[in-house]
């Protein structure tokens, strides 16, 4: 079985400050990890993914995420938040050793960046 936890329903930061959106996962094998963003009335947009290699992954719009195997975490980060980053963020996991297609998503974290 695989699962994802996003412990914070909401994250509030001031524009220009660093942001972190937390994600922890559970899989029986090795994980593939993904972050998506969802804007109102729009579909999920891919931000970045961790497959293998460097634990720090860089993605779209200046976002990055750090894979930590010992803590089973994959937190999303950005050094300087923009008001336009305000959206709903989802973390997802796939188990490398099981079926290729099945992604398990967290329940999402609403990020609000205030001017």
């Amino acid at each position: 079985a695989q699962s994802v936890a996003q412990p914070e329903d909401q994250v509030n930061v001031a524009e220009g400050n660093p942001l972190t959106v937390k994600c922890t996962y559970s899989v029986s094998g090795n994980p593939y990890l993904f972050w998506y963003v969802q804007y109102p009335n729009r579909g999920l947009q891919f931000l970045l993914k961790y497959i293998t290699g460097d634990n720090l992954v860089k993605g779209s719009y200046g976002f990055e995420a750090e894979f930590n195997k010992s803590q089973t975490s994959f937190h999303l980060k950005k050094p300087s938040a923009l008001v336009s980053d305000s959206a709903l963020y989802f973390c997802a996991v796939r188990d490398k050793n099981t079926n290729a297609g099945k992604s398990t998503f967290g329940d999402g974290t609403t990020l609000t960046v205030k001017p």
Partner: protein
Amino acid sequence: GAGVSQTPSNKVTEKGKYVELRCDPISGHTALYWYRQSLGQGPEFLIYFQGTGAADDSGLPNDRFFAVRPEGSVSTLKIQRTERGDSAMYLCASSPGVSGSTDTQYFGPGTRLTVL
């Protein structure tokens, strides 16, 4: 290029009726996925196609739900005898299908189904 498209964008139906939701994947993508997203929750996996065949349908909640992809492109999610609990956003995604688990899935805008 064109992304994943889904029709209709909204569907309102009455309890007990039959509905079909359509997904047009990105051209050339061999893998296609259906998810259901309820309010305040993340997408929940329903079914995954590789080509014309369902590679994993473990997420379909019961036998009222069925999906097809007869020519390996467009897919239709079919729900029989709809119930109020089926009300949700139904999301479709596609991926190139060449990298298996590492493929990035590209999502459509979804179909919001409301069962009255």
